[in-house]
């Protein structure tokens, strides 16, 4: 039974919260933004969607300032070890804010979504809520907090997925997402509860110490590990926890698809890295023998399965969003390759890969939105001959897709290069085989990615409709900037790689 805390204890709790709040400013700021956006929508009464969107962008940009200030603060755990402020978390804070901004930019371009009768009120505030949730996923150091953060992301995402209320596709996607999400959350929390049962701790570094010192029942630990992996795998969209993603990606409004495919996936990876590197003891002597938590072998299988399944099944897709969904499953596989090496280079590679993935995947979805505006379809067959009508969009999409294949000189290549460098640098036959699988599947991926430029440039349109295919000035600028950045960072990736290394160094001695 709980005892009522004494007055002094309450005082100390309050003072801890107060002192912790100083390390929690970006999250607080964004929560405030969430409410401001709701009020703003009420004031505007559903008119002037551009104002709401601009306010979101400006608000998100404002948070960059607060995140930047956090660089000056020392690494600390706040709120009784529930939450951590460190460079790893800060990296992801920037990452999610950028993802959020690009998602809003993509939303602004989507005519279909903006033409909705019900307005865009909650849309932007939920989007911001998701940014907060993802930030918290990346920074939580406590099982409870991790679960809460993940639920915040999931709940916002369910609503956003079903935002096209009048469309069966969208509602169906939201329902599927919800059902799968609920099951995975259940598994995750069950796994967490088992871990808590073994260790009597919820803070991940304490769990690690407890496991290393007192040992555990391997059978229970295997079960707990599998359950946690299932919960995280669902967020990352890795095989065999991927079943939701093609349907959800296809049905959701395209900007949300882009947002989920990058943001939510990256948050899953951030949480996996923190949990896996910190909570699972591996810097301790003799732990390699503990069969109970052989995470690495498990993740090797998941990675290989994701790369093969995602890339092979994508070949048969006829809908561009569905195709990109399968491609995102494959990318989860490549990202896992960086994690299993369990070293600095691998972690750095994952962060670089994610940054590249952010640019090229959202870029690709942005062009998909622009094209859907003109042809009202996301079917690959309707892309025929579009290259002539929308040359810039065609060129940009080609660059993004080439980057997704991982060809130089694009950012996607840098990500793959670093992942494979980490694998080969790690050495060991299994890692070589995984590198081979990665390399071979990326050749397969060329086939389906190139199917889009093939339709756009090599084939002629069957429809001769004289339509206006001009995109707006602003849209052209955004496409061009994203395209040039994808190429620029493919050639000069030093700053990003260095920042990623700095962020990855947070794990310190945990990694080799």
């Amino acid at each position, binding site marked *: 039974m709980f005892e009522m805390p004494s007055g002094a204890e309450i005082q100390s709790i309050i003072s801890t919260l107060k002192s912790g709040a100083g390390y929690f400013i970006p999250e607080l700021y964004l929560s405030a933004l969430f409410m401001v956006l709701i009020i703003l929508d009420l004031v505007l009464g559903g008119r002037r969607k551009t104002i709401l969107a601009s306010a979101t962008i400006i608000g998100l940009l404002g948070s960059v300032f607060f995140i930047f200030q956090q660089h000056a603060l020392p690494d600390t755990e706040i709120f009784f070890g529930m939450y951590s402020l460190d460079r790893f978390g800060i990296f992801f804070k920037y990452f999610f804010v950028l993802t959020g901004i690009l998602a809003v930019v993509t939303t602004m371009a989507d005519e279909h979504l903006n033409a909705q009768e019900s307005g865009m009120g909650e849309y932007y505030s939920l989007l911001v809520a998701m940014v907060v949730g993802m930030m918290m996923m990346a920074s939580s150091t406590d099982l409870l907090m991790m679960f809460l953060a993940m639920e915040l992301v999931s709940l916002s995402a369910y609503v956003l997925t079903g935002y096209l209320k009048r469309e069966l596709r969208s509602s169906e996607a939201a329902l599927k997402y919800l059902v799968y999400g609920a099951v995975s959350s259940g598994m995750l929390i069950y796994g967490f509860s088992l871990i808590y049962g073994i260790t009597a701790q919820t803070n991940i570094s304490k769990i690690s110490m407890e496991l290393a010192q007192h040992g555990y029942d391997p059978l229970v630990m295997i079960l707990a590990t599998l359950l946690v992996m299932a919960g995280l795998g669902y967020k990352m969209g890795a095989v065999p926890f991927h079943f939701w993603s093609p349907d959800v990606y296809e049905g959701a409004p395209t900007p949300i698809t882009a947002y989920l495919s990058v943001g939510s996936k990256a948050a899953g990876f951030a949480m996996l890295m923190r949990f896996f590197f910190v909570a699972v003891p591996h810097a301790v002597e003799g732990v390699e023998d503990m069969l109970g938590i052989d995470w690495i072998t498990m993740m090797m299988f998941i990675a290989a399965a994701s790369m093969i399944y995602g890339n092979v099944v994508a070949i048969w897709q006829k809908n561009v969003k569905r195709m990109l969904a399968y491609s995102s499953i494959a990318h989860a596989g490549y990202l896992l390759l960086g994690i299993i090496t369990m070293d600095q280079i691998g972690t750095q590679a994952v962060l670089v890969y994610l940054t590249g993935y952010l640019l090229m995947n959202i870029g690709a979805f942005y062009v998909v939105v622009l094209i859907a505006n003109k042809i009202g379809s996301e079917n690959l067959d309707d892309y025929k001959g579009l290259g002539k009508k929308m040359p810039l969009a065609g060129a940009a999409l080609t660059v993004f897709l080439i980057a997704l294949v991982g060809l130089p000189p694009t950012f996607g290549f840098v990500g793959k290069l670093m992942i494979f460098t980490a694998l080969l640098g790690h050495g060991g036959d299994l890692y070589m085989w995984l590198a081979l699988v990665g*390399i071979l599947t990326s*050749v397969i991926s060329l086939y389906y990615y190139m199917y889009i430029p093939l339709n756009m440039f090599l084939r002629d349109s069957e429809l001769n409709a004289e339509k206006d295919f001009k995109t707006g000035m602003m849209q052209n600028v955004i496409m061009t900037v994203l395209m040039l950045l994808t190429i620029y960072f493919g050639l000069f990736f030093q700053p990003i790689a260095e920042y990623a290394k700095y962020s990855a160094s947070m794990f310190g001695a945990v990694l080799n």
Partner: protein
Amino acid sequence: MLSLIVFLPIIAGLIILAVPASQKQIIRIVSLLAAVAQGVVAVLIWRQYDPTMAGIVAAPGGSPVGSFQLIERLPWISLDLGSFGPLTIEYFLGVDGISITMVLLTALISIIGVLSSWTIQKQVKGYFILFNLLSTAMMGCFVALDFFLFYVFWELMLLPMYFLIGIWGGPNREYAAIKFFLYTLFGSVFMLLVMIGLYFSVIDPLTGNHTFSLVAMASQENYVPGSILGPGSAMWRTIAFVVLFVGFAIKVPMFPFHTWLPDAHVEAPTPISVILAGVLLKLGTYGMMRINFPLFPEVFQAGLYTIGVFGAINIIYGAFCALAQQDLKKMVAYSSISHMGYVLLGLAAGNSEGMLGALYQMFNHGTITAMLFLLVGVIYDRAHTRAIDKFGGLASYMPVYAAVVAIAWFASLGLPGLSGFISEAFVFVGAFSAPTTRPIAMVSVLGIVFGAAYLLWSLQRMFLGKRKPDAVYDIETDAHGHEHIHFHDWTGKLDLDARELTMLVPLAIIIIALGIYPMPVMGLLTASINKLVTVLAPVAMSAVN
């Protein structure tokens, strides 16, 4: 200087980007100017080049750039990888005898390519932007001395080529384009893994850091013992060699990886065929000489026989396939496979004569095949068909064309006095003098006979005799009783016009001149080839192990 020659086309491409698509003539002229400027720079480089310096590899303890010339070396990317030390990637360009030959060839073929693209009417702007991008990538490959940089240029070639075949190609272009892309990518992704493996195995002797420099990789002293591709790791070194070899062999293309080539050639427009056969195929054998062999000399020595056998298969199989073709372009494409077989055979000889012949053959094949494809293009423009059987007796109606065809055809079959003869002779001298390849060379000689067969037979069927009953042209008799022929819907000059002559005559002159006096090109190669042979020699290896 080298940067200039590499990036001139891309600058032209950017200018073209700013020109409105309707200004076709301006776009063409800008491209031509860039190609000519590239040619001028190539000549300047040639003048400046000192053929006595060998290149290939840096002497131990000497300068890290070795005796390469026109060096440009800048730090590009430097990342700290913790326990692996800094990851340094350099912008490192330079030439030696092997690369300068290819630079000259590329510059020449680029000019020919632009001229030959003059008749392209569809989406001219996009075409020339891609063409210039391709041109930069090719040139970059030949002068890059940092493996990473080489890889970037190597992959950069794929996309423009894909679109150039895919958009401007023939009826079955989609298939040909994606086949080309997948085949080459399949070869090159493994190169990526080997590149990373090499990076971890090689130390720059001056800085003590790992490096991507091909110069450092070429000397076995720089390999770290115990590293994945270091001395003693025989299994991985063999695998790496084979994987690299396959990657380059796909480009050559070597049997059994050749099937993309006939498809690509048949569908590609004439200028792209010219570039493909003239330059791109050489990248395969160049890669072998620059990267594959010197980095793994002991595996190369062990594989001489196998490489030679594949060379012989290429020669004879290519010739047989060519013999069976009805489509003139397909015949020329298979003749390319056959002729690249001589290059492989020369390399497999492993001695100076063979290597010299191989490299010289690369240059000569570039010029001769360019001519062959141009000539195929000429007749295709007029007749809209390339079926060998749909002609007959053309020599009397198109005498100039027939004469130029004769030069090219005879050069291709290796008639003495034309450049192809000298390189093939060297290849055979090399192959016969090396004990390993002697039996292979004896079989390969048959290839010359079959080569003569398909070339002479096609010449006879198309140009000699009388008009075939189902020929694609009509014969008209004018008032003076002279016979003229008339192609359906061809309004231009019947025989070669000025533009076509501008492309063909210089090539013909080069082929004849280098057949009589090969020293201008041969002189550039000898020092480097001799050095390469010593680097590859078994003695050099045993000293290391």
